[in-house]
């Protein structure tokens, strides 16, 4: 993995040795820590993680493996423990190699789709769509209409990253989460941030 490329996501759960975590960072991984099976699964899905690296205790009952397998990520689970620890099945060096292989696959897949016919026109059309959605969001914020604002941020969260506006994903996710939790003031504040970022991105 080229060191100049942005790091790619990976989920770490439990007491994975620091040496292993450092090796993964050097290989180009951005680590997201999870505490618990459900959190590890949620983080793997939310961040579209290349791998899920867990301590043996997290894999003991097979729940996480079964859920990852059922969601199509069966091959992405790796169990790593301290040397000699029961259940430790993956050498640290092999771990970084595995991550690099998945990272190469991701870059190759992106290259396949980046060359699709009509893609430039689709991005251009999405820019116009994004501008219209920001007007909708501004109207919803002015009217204090949390439901309408939620519909917009939900749409932007789901699509902006795919059209090359990944910088809008974090703010739209925050706004969506606040609205879903019923914290409308925080939701509107995050929506304001999203509108500023979209204005920057569309400039």
């Amino acid at each position, binding site marked *: 993995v080229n060191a100049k490329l942005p790091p790619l996501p990976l989920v770490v759960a439990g007491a994975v040795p620091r040496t292993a975590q450092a090796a993964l960072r050097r290989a180009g991984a951005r680590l997201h820590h999870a505490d618990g*099976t*459900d*959190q590890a*699964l*949620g*983080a793997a*899905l*939310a961040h*579209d993680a290349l791998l899920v690296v867990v301590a043996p205790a997290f894999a003991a009952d097979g729940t996480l493996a079964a*859920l990852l397998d*059922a*969601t*199509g*990520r069966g091959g992405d689970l790796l169990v790593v423990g301290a040397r000699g620890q029961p259940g430790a099945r993956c050498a640290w060096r092999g771990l970084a190699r595995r991550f690099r292989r*998945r990272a190469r*696959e*991701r870059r190759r*897949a*992106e290259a*396949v*789709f980046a060359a*699709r016919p*009509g*893609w430039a026109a*689709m991005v251009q*059309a*999405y820019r116009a*769509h994004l501008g219209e959605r920001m007007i909708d969001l501004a109207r919803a914020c002015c009217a204090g209409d949390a439901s309408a604002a939620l519909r917009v941020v*939900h*749409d932007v*969260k*789901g*699509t*902006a*990253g*795919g*059209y090359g506006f*990944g910088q809008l*994903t974090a703010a739209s996710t925050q706004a*969506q989460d606040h609205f879903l939790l019923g914290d409308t003031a925080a939701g509107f504040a995050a929506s304001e941030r999203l509108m500023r970022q979209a204005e920057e991105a569309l400039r």
Partner: protein
Amino acid sequence: VSGGAMADENAGDGTSPAADARRVLLADDSRAGRDLLASMLRQVCVAELLEAGDGHEAMLALRAQPFQLVFLDIEMPGMDGLEVLRQVSALQPAPYVVVVTAHASAVNVKQALELGARGFVVKPYSAQRILDVLRRYLTDTRDTALVRPAR
């Protein structure tokens, strides 16, 4: 499928009878979301792509003709994706359904899997994730006619 129906320009290869045609349904209330996924699938699939903008449209399409693969959004107006999943399981043959949602929670995953989903993709997704889904579909169904041979 009202309004959003879209036959892929690459649909069919001119040699297969229509009854054997492979069909993929994209059910999502976001037009931009459907366009994005459709553009990816056109690169790698030899199938007729159809779109549905809500759960009712999706069920109409699914009852009208057989689909091999369905990408199903959870949050849609009217009938949501989970209700579609419930009804899809009664179809014969039941299509291979992959849930595509902006909500990544273990609860959603477990619920979708219990209702028969075969895959779970969270938006925004990478191109690699879509290829992984298709690879898994091939492994599970051995339906090699849906995916364009690798060059």
